[in-house]
């Protein structure tokens, strides 16, 4: 019995965090955000050296072949740095979809290129979670017509995996669609709206009349978003604590006032158990498959709630400075806000958790 990280896992996370600390500090995040660059080439390259893009891709396809837990540790580091990297969809969700539902030819064509960082895939499954407006994609003679909204990593991608209205997943080239950027509060990641008008596509055969690969892909994405929020919230908490130790008013550091100290303690008390929840949810994907959907839902929903609390409270501890652009806290605030809504806002995800444990019918 060992509930914790191995030495290798700790080293992996330290190396990614260490790299981001130097190569993707706040000044770099600012530059990228100002240029609407959600995939700065130098950071992407540097992460490729560490194997980030291929973390869950099987070794046979040139990946590192590690588990969701290692992938979550990286997501946490990326969230901690508010790093502009198309990670969640391209590096984790797409390989899960391709591994579980792709044909041999599709896996051969895409997985090695994803793992090397050469290809970036956007993933658009939102309509299978909760359709907004009249989005959705129909299929006729293998061609796609309709819209996928909120395609994750969509502006960095050259190809998308989108779900049709029956839940089957398809590969479609960006060039065969009409894509436009949806500008969000979070300038560190891209989201696209993808319109298809009889677009050529390739179905992932394992996802036809079998919802499991799509659900597994969504689970993986949710765990990554939860881990991203964990990292971002931890950074905000750490910054609030160090600000409270430095900032002086009334001839003393403000962290000595219980009003401020208790806000910090409440953040720590809420956030620390989240780490264990994310670890367990990620570990369960392989080790406790019977629980994994429920745990992915809870990780996503609970981190969304705690993340929001920490984001606003840490900002508040900084007083007026927290509200300005000067400290850049808002990059994490917005990152957490973004994570919360993607792949199902908390109420939606909790309802799925009720279904996953048989409390109600789907």
């Amino acid at each position, binding site marked *: 019995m060992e509930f914790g990280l191995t030495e290798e896992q700790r080293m992996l996370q330290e190396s990614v965090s260490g790299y981001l600390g130097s190569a993707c500090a706040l000044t770099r995040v600012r530059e990228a955000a100002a240029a609407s660059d959600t995939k700065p080439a130098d950071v992407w390259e540097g992460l490729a050296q560490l194997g980030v893009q291929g973390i869950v891709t099987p070794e046979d396809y040139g990946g590192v072949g590690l588990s969701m837990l290692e992938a979550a540790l990286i997501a946490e580091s990326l969230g901690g740095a508010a790093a502009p990297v198309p990670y969640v969809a391209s590096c984790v969700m797409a390989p899960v979809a391709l591994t579980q539902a792709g044909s041999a030819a599709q896996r051969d064509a895409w997985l090695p290129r994803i793992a090397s960082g050469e290809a970036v895939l956007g993933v658009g499954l939102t309509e299978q979670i909760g359709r907004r407006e009249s989005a959705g994609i129909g299929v006729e003679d293998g061609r796609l017509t309709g819209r996928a909204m909120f395609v994750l990593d969509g502006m960095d991608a050259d190809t998308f995996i989108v779900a049709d209205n029956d839940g089957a997943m398809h590969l479609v080239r960006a060039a065969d669609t009409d894509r436009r950027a949806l500008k969000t509060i979070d300038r560190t990641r891209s989201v696209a709206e993808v319109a298809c008008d009889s677009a050529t596509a390739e179905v992932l055969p394992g996802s036809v009349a079998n919802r499991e690969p799509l659900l597994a892909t969504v689970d993986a994405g949710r765990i990554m978003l939860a881990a991203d929020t964990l990292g971002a919230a931890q950074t905000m908490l750490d910054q609030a604590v160090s600000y409270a130790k430095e900032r002086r008013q009334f001839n*003393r550091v403000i962290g000595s006032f219980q009003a401020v*100290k*208790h806000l910090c303690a409440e953040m*720590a008390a809420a956030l620390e158990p989240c780490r264990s929840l994310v670890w367990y949810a990620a570990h369960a994907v392989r080790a406790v498959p019977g629980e994994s959907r429920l745990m992915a839902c809870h990780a996503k929903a609970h981190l969304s709630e705690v993340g929001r609390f920490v984001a606003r409270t840490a900002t508040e501890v900084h007083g007026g400075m927290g509200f300005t652009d000067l400290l850049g806290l808002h990059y994490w605030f917005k990152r957490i806000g973004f994570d919360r809504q993607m792949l199902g806002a908390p109420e939606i995800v909790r309802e799925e958790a009720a279904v996953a444990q048989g*409390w109600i019918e789907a």
Partner: protein
Amino acid sequence: MDLAYGEEYERFREEVRAFLAEHGKDAPPQFSRGKSDAQSRAWQQLLIERGYAARTIPKEYGGYGAEPDVLKAHIIAEEFAKARVRAGHIGDDRLVPTLLELGTEEQQRAYIPPTVRGEMRWCQGYSEPNSGSDLASLSTRAELDGDEFVINGQKIWTSGAQHADMMFCLVRTEPDAPKHQGISYLLFSMDTPGIEVRPLVTMTGDASFNEVFFTDVRVPASQIVGRRGEGWYVANATLKHERGGLGDPNQAETRFLHIVDMMRNETIDGRPLMEFPAYRDRLLKLQGQMLAMRFNGMRILSHAIKGEEPGLPRWIVKLNGCEMNHQMAGMAIDLMGELGVLYHGSPHIRDSGLWQQRYMLDLGLIIGGGTAQIQKNLIGERALGLPKELKVPPQA
């Protein structure tokens, strides 16, 4: 990550389960009040023989005498909780470890065996009316007169004092020393002349706490544990056990399952509560918190197995666990609506009014054992390294 306990421990778990299946029916009710009774003592004796109580207390002091094994202790606690069978005890989980660590051999031989057997019951004399969160400011005096301490003063919040045979008590013996260095730790019989116990009725309507008054209570000087002026450190040697105990995640899980049953069985206009999205969402929010605390508990357990101090994951257990239990009780009451306010013997009452009882008692637990605000100070100062509040000089 390795969630398997391994063959040895799985076998141990099977043994515990088999024991509970066979003997669980002989256990006394979960919470018995009053003087120790024959059934409780027999149950405790059986548990000690099997190694499910007083497990690591040496045999010569009436225990089972096993080597400490965090995982086995965890399995025992988990299985007893699951079976809802009253677990064994080591007599008093603060006093016995304190005596084992710091008592004289004479004190150990005199007090540990009857305590472990459940024949000698203890109460804790720490809090005072003017020394709650600031416990070290306590003012109950003990002055040495010949070879006896003479105690005068008052304690409050003394659980079980009306049934206890003995008290372990913090008293001020060195009034001129700094507050933490002027305290001593004494043991004495509750039958000693000059002790008066007055029940303190709480909001639940019960009197599980007491006020205890001391008027010229004479206690032999040999009844001190540790040296004069070291009582604060003697008490703190084991205070950490109590803090870890409140907010145990097992309790939240049991409550949660009870609430799920209630959501399925209680109806409004003939529809089960589980069909109401607002109730469901609230239940799911609590489940998310509970799971996070369950896995946090597993993380603490892993540290404990390796003999490591878990740090922050442990500092938050009392604060979060007590709050979560309180919220669960509040939710159960809300699920019942009008039925939720029925109390003590009313027609239509659910679970004998248990949830109202818990809702109030839990508030007591949020306050007791170090208030939520004291917990936040500890988290802020010890785990996050924030500075202490500036001391205000004593007022003239």
